[in-house]
């Protein structure tokens, strides 16, 4: 007698090159088998017509606890994650206080365990107070559970500090994630600099703000032989630089957010603050370059940059509104467009949201290998639904997809063999 049996789904486990219609069964919270099951099960899920894959991973998430729990807390963020089929999230350190101290890292992990819906892996601060001046105690943070380091939200702007951060982190095989933005070029900007910012009279952020920071960082990566990861890549020039760095053999990786491959700056033509984020939505040619990067593997990861805000911080006109949109609950349906458009196979697409980030961060998740934790996402790739921001599990309702039809919906999410989300309900 097995605990949970998932029958007759299209099982896709990119880490093990599995893509076939079969069963998955779970015992003691672990994957016990993938194939043809014979016998009885305590709980059976009929996955006919559905896709069964590893629970998804989103390595770029902002939860606002501690400090700004009215925007999001670990519980609401965890609920949003599993509703989106995501069982592992990496949370950025710009909490209040920020995660530059082991105590905060441990507190966040403990709170996520208490909530018990998904795995939470904090990303520690590169610098104390995210000020970009003095390094944080990375070894200490790592021991407390931090899986990588970033000052996200802020770039590590000082070239000397960045060099030291790369040298120090790579001495211990840690990963540095950069929010690549040369603030001297983007200061005061709210949207992409271009024809739309010209027409709206809103200060723009040129792609060069992103591109020149990445150019500097790639040189420093060459100098330090470190591992450098570009967060939320958004420009054509940035994708090209990362591609060239990889071809050269440098340890440079990157991720793309769904909004950067699904939307363009046209979204802000009507001053829509729910389409404002940093880096901003760019032009069609940038969007296509991001898609090409995803297709050819330059961009190995899809991550949301989930950034919940209170509506008061968005309801004040485009140039005053806070940067960021929520993404946990829309990642999968938006990403599925890449498969529907024939850009990525279903297996390659799922890899970018499961085993690829897990491998990068050396986490055991993102696979259905026998003996691994039974974190599973079961979704209907064709189910259509209309996104209503009021129905989101996240406290943040700041999404540009409100009112739009999504194709693809999570039906079940399992964490350690327990069904935590089933057809619209958190269990």
């Amino acid at each position, binding site marked *: 007698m097995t605990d949970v049996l998932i029958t007759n789904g299209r099982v896709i486990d990119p880490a093990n090159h599995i893509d076939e219609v079969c069963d998955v069964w779970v015992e003691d919270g672990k994957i016990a088998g993938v194939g043809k099951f014979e016998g009885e099960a305590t709980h059976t899920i009929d996955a006919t017509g559905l896709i069964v894959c590893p629970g998804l991973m989103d390595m770029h998430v902002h939860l606002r606890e501690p400090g700004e729990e009215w925007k999001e807390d670990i519980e609401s963020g965890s609920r949003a994650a599993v509703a989106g089929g995501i069982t592992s999230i990496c949370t950025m350190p710009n909490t209040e206080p920020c995660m530059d101290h082991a105590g905060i890292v441990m507190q966040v992990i403990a709170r996520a365990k208490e909530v018990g819906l998904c795995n939470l892996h904090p990303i520690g601060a590169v610098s104390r107070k995210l000020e970009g001046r003095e390094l944080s105690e990375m070894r200490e943070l790592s021991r407390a559970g931090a899986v990588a380091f970033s000052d996200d939200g802020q770039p590590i702007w000082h070239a000397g500090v960045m060099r030291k951060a790369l040298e120090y982190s790579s001495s211990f095989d840690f990963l540095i994630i950069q929010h690549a933005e040369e603030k001297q070029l983007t200061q005061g900007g709210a949207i992409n600099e271009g*024809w739309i910012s010209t027409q709206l009279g809103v200060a723009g952020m040129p792609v060069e703000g992103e591109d020149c920071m990445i150019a500097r960082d790639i040189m420093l990566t060459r100098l330090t032989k470190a591992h450098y990861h570009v967060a939320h890549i958004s420009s054509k020039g940035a994708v090209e630089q990362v591609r060239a760095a990889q071809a050269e053999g440098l340890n440079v990786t990157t991720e793309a957010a769904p909004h950067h491959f699904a939307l363009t700056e046209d979204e802000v033509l009507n001053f829509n603050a729910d389409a404002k984020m940093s880096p901003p939505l760019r032009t069609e040619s940038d969007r296509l370059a991001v898609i090409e990067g995803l297709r050819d593997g330059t961009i190995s990861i899809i991550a949301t940059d989930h950034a919940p805000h209170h509506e008061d911080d968005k309801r004040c006109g485009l140039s005053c509104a806070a940067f960021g949109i929520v993404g946990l609950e829309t990642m999968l349906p938006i990403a599925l467009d890449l498969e529907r458009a024939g850009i990525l196979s279903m297996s390659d697409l799922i890899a970018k949201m499961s085993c690829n980030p897990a491998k990068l961060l050396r986490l055991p998740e993102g696979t259905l290998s026998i003996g691994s934790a039974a974190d599973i996402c079961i979704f209907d790739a064709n189910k259509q639904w209309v996104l209503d921001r009021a129905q989101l599990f996240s406290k943040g309702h700041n999404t540009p997809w409100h009112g739009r039809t999504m194709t693809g919906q999570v039906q079940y999410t399992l964490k350690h063999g327990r069904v935590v989300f089933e057809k619209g309900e958190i269990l």
Partner: protein
Amino acid sequence: MPQPLFGLKHLFGIAGLSRDQIESLVNMGDEFIDINSRSVKKAPTLRGRTVINLFFENSTRTRTSFEIAGKRLSADVINISASTSATKKGETLLDTAQTLAAMQPHVLIIRHSVAGTCEFLADYLDNTALINAGDGAHEHPTQILTDLLTLKHNIGSIEGKTMTIVGDISHSRVARSHLIAANILGYKVRLVAPKTLLPSHVRNYGCEVFHDFDAALEGTDILYMLRVQTERLTDNCCFPSTREYHEAYGLNMQRLKAAGDHCMVMHPGPMNRGVEIATNVADSMKSLILEQVEHGVAVRMAALTALCGGATEE
């Protein structure tokens, strides 16, 4: 509520207006000039209408112009100067606007430093017509209607004429509104500024761009000088000194002569004498600057009439 005229529910900008709507507003403004020159400057057109001037940025001429326009048409005009805090402008803005709208005015006239303020507020205010009196660097429609009325009086049809706009195009709502109007009405715009004062994709409007003022003079019918905000100098490194700016981009008598005898001078005010415009040019026979101010009242009377002067359905 009164029925709007010319199909105008709000006046957000020149963008979105048709040639007919622009011409109707200008022509109606033309008819109001007469009232302003009478000894008894009052008409009953807007009796019983309430108009609120809500200004979040300092303004003398635009606010006064709207106030006089409303009062001469017998509307009840209330002026509010709201101060903005540096960061959380928005909450104050929306709350203030909703509070005022709850008092049931017919028209809210708004000036704010944030582009798109009227578009943003319109989603929350159902029964109030909004007039944009300047929103950041976005649009300033009544200034353009004013200029068009002044030009109608001085050069006749503007179609095919060349307007050369000089100065801080980047931060200018007047320049943007003219660029849009030029495409609707068929006049040509030349922009003159250093690259530091030009928005990135401004050529997409179909205008000509010059960095050398002298090269842009020939063939110009209207020299339109923009106010230089000296704070741009230190904050943004946009130009090194007012002295050098005046030399490169200031309108002096020599340049005015080079443009030719037919060329007229405009400025939306307030002027920095000796910076973008020399005193003898500002005070010359070619200057339409005070006429612009005079016509501003008439055009704003037209805008208010269009939005709240129609027949009332009860």
